[in-house]
């Protein structure tokens, strides 16, 4: 057998050997997860809007934000200039907007961290109501809203302020723990 013939199978052997060595190399290689910079968003959205509908197909919630992003820690979704509007049977109920907000995915809490404005739309029974404060924590599961900051509220022509507030939507109770001041106009005649 001529040596040349040997060359072919030899080359084949070498190639196969090389291939298996390479394959083996691959299989034993530790896939090293490249850590993303925790301070930099994993993804970011600009001018986002989101709608949610109730079982009858009517608009229930409508969220718009100039920017939204999530950090690699997967715990929070951050929103800039967020405005959440809620509806019942398509009728506007109230809106909550803040310069910056953070939604904690596990806790299901929204942390409005910079100048919050809650607005209750006027209806045929009640005048419009507006509540302003620096920051607010909304627990979407317990349906509560809480702040320790100064809050200022208007209700038709009536107005007032307090240091801190805790609102429980399920029981319909609002507690104002400190420094309550209010100027109340008769709602029937004044709005």
């Amino acid at each position, binding site marked *: 057998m001529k040596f040349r013939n040997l060359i072919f199978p030899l080359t084949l052997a070498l190639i196969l050997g090389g291939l298996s060595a390479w394959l083996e190399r691959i299989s034993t290689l530790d896939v090293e997860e490249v850590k993303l910079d925790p301070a930099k968003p994993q993804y970011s959205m600009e001018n986002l809007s989101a709608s949610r509908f109730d079982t009858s197909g009517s608009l229930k919630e409508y969220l718009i934000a100039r920017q939204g992003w999530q950090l690699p820690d997967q715990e929070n979704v951050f929103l800039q200039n967020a405005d959440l509007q809620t509806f019942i049977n398509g009728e506007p109920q109230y809106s909550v907007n803040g310069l910056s907000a953070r939604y904690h995915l596990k806790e299901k809490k929204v942390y409005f961290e910079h100048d919050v404005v809650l607005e209750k739309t006027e209806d045929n029974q009640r005048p419009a109501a507006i509540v302003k404060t620096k920051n607010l924590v909304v627990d979407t599961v317990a349906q509560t809203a809480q702040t320790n900051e100064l809050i200022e509220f208007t209700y038709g022509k009536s107005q007032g302020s307090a240091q801190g507030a805790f609102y429980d939507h399920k029981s319909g*109770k*609002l507690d*104002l723990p400190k420094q*309550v*001041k209010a*100027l109340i*106009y008769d709602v029937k005649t004044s709005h």
Partner: protein
Amino acid sequence: LESDRNQPISIEADSGSLDQKNQVTVFTGNVVIKQGSLNIRAHAIRVAQDKQGNQLIQAEGNPVHFGQQLEDKGYVEGSGNQVEYESSTGLVRLTGNAMVKRGGDVARGAAITYNMRTEVYTVLGSKIAGTASGTKNGRVSVIIQPSTVNKNSKKK
């Protein structure tokens, strides 16, 4: 004053709570309420409103103080450990060391009921009212100045 009713109500307190479902508001701690010439100072005030919009205001204090300018009869002021006002009947009830003063006239007793519509006072001693009275023997004490004195005291 008649015009008081149309004035806004100013409220200041250390803390407050609102129960929307039961339409009950409670203010606690150094509570000061003003409406026109009417002013009330108490430790705690509870305002309940029924479906027809009638209000029941209950104040507690050590004591509760209130005062109001009357249309043409000077200034009336009063105090009591508890003060209750029902908008549907126009009745103001003071209980516990109750006292009402207008010009030189003073009424003291365990309980005083004042009807804002008929301007009639009813003063009860502690035996009937069952609460403490500011008077020595628990009986009613009423001092009514002769009208001449009343006129002079109004001019001051």
